[in-house]
């Protein structure tokens, strides 16, 4: 009997990883195909970004730096879509850019898609500046001379000819900036080289794995709010009352989290049993 128990414990601790892969795949797929739409609670850090956007008067300058690459698209792109929807609905002057060259296409797509959805015109309601090399140096340079850093927008139109940019000469003219980051350069760089020196309000968005690292900045008031991962994007979608891909993905995320929780608990139960068996 003991030998049999020992065998089960050993086998459970060394379970075939393909079994775990299959559980994760099912936990992802089934809720996507049969959504339950569980209620999403709003966290204070996401609400802070939303409330600040709400407090901006019409015509305020909102800068969205989409500093993420395709690998982070599932998590951060829905954040960009939600923020752009909010900004365009509020009739803010929207400036979009990216500090990651591989993010240019997604940033352009996000701006164009939401602008078309809300019938906004490039140059009049928004500008997409594209990408410049230099990472944090681009932020510093924009703080000194935004037009000099981006003499033309992504489409080759001189910045001076874009009416949306008329009163925006440096980062000091920006009312609210949000960096959606997936690594370097990201929220940290926007704070250190941007907000700290040029004094504009800054919010952050990031992948879920990066979000805990940004809490010290949040608590210190260095960023006024934080949208963390797909969950943060889903919360923002709920605040906007417009469900999108983030809300659709929350059931899957719930299921996969719980599969991992159950697996870790099972693994530890068998681990404790195996230790007791070794002692006896």
């Amino acid at each position, binding site marked *: 009997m003991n030998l049999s128990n020992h065998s089960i414990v050993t086998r459970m601790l060394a379970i075939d990883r393909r079994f775990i892969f299959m559980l994760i795949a099912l936990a992802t797929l089934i809720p996507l195909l049969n959504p339950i739409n569980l209620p*999403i*609670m709003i966290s204070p850090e996401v609400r802070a970004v939303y409330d600040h956007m709400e407090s901006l008067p019409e015509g305020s300058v909102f800068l969205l730096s989409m500093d993420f690459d395709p*690998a982070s698209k599932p998590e951060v792109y829905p954040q960009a879509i939600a923020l752009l929807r909010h900004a365009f609905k509020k009739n803010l002057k929207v400036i979009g850019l990216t500090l990651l060259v591989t993010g240019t296409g997604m940033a352009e*797509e996000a701006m164009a898609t939401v602008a078309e959805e809300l019938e906004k015109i490039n140059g009049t309601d928004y500008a997409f500046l594209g990408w410049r090399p230099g990472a944090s140096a681009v932020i510093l340079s924009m703080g000194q001379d935004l037009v000099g850093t981006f003499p033309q927008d992504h489409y080759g139109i001189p910045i001076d000819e874009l009416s949306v940019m008329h009163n925006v000469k440096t980062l000091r003219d920006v009312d609210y900036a949000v960096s959606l980051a997936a690594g370097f350069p990201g929220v940290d760089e926007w704070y250190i080289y941007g907000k700290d020196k040029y004094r504009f309000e800054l919010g952050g968005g990031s992948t879920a794995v990066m*979000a805990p690292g940004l809490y*010290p900045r949040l608590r*210190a008031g260095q960023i006024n709010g934080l949208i963390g991962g797909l969950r943060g994007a889903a919360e923002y979608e709920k605040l906007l009352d417009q469900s999108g891909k983030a809300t659709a993905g929350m059931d899957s995320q719930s299921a996969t989290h*719980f599969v991992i929780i159950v697996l870790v608990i099972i693994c530890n139960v068998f681990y*404790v049993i195996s230790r007791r068996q070794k002692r006896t």
Partner: protein
Amino acid sequence: MIFLKRQLPLVVTFCMGVVFAMQYYVPHPTSEALLKNASNWIIIIGGFALILGLVSLIQLHMHRIQRNVGGWGYSAVLFAAMFAMVIAGILAGGKNLDSERALTGYGWAYSYAMVPLQGTMFSLLAFFVASAAYRAFRARTKEAALLLIAALLVMWGRVPLGEYLWAFSGDIAQWILNVINSSVRRAILIGVSLGVIALSIKIIFGIERMYLGGKKE
């Protein structure tokens, strides 16, 4: 030659280090213009770094193909993909969308090849994380048990199902992130920052010279 290799870089580092450390605290227009010029230099150097990276990548993979190193076929695929993207990019003027908001060839390759491929690579992590968590996340010590409990609570409280099953779990996860996580990370950040300041001072004053080539005089 020793002057060019050793003394000159040390002098330049000292001057630039002192000037830009002072610059932060001097809001005079001349000081701001200096920062603007330096930022522009960095942006231009960043552009050249891209070319350097490209040349280095080509050299590395050419070498692999020439010597028939195992997996050289992947290097050939890299060249094919890279040059296809460069040609598509030049033809599209670097734009993903044309004037009628339709995808260009470059945009098509980006949206339907690069984005799904990178997304897939990153998504695979979920499977490996789950497998690794099962194998490695064990309460071997008291510290590991604490970490395990904290991780489970945050995982539970950060998803709608967790909050639905136990409404208080969201607040617990929030407290762990806001209080415990923030304080520990802040301590690490302060430590790292002090280390960076100390290292910067050593570099500015020429005490730390490893960046000159790694050899000590």
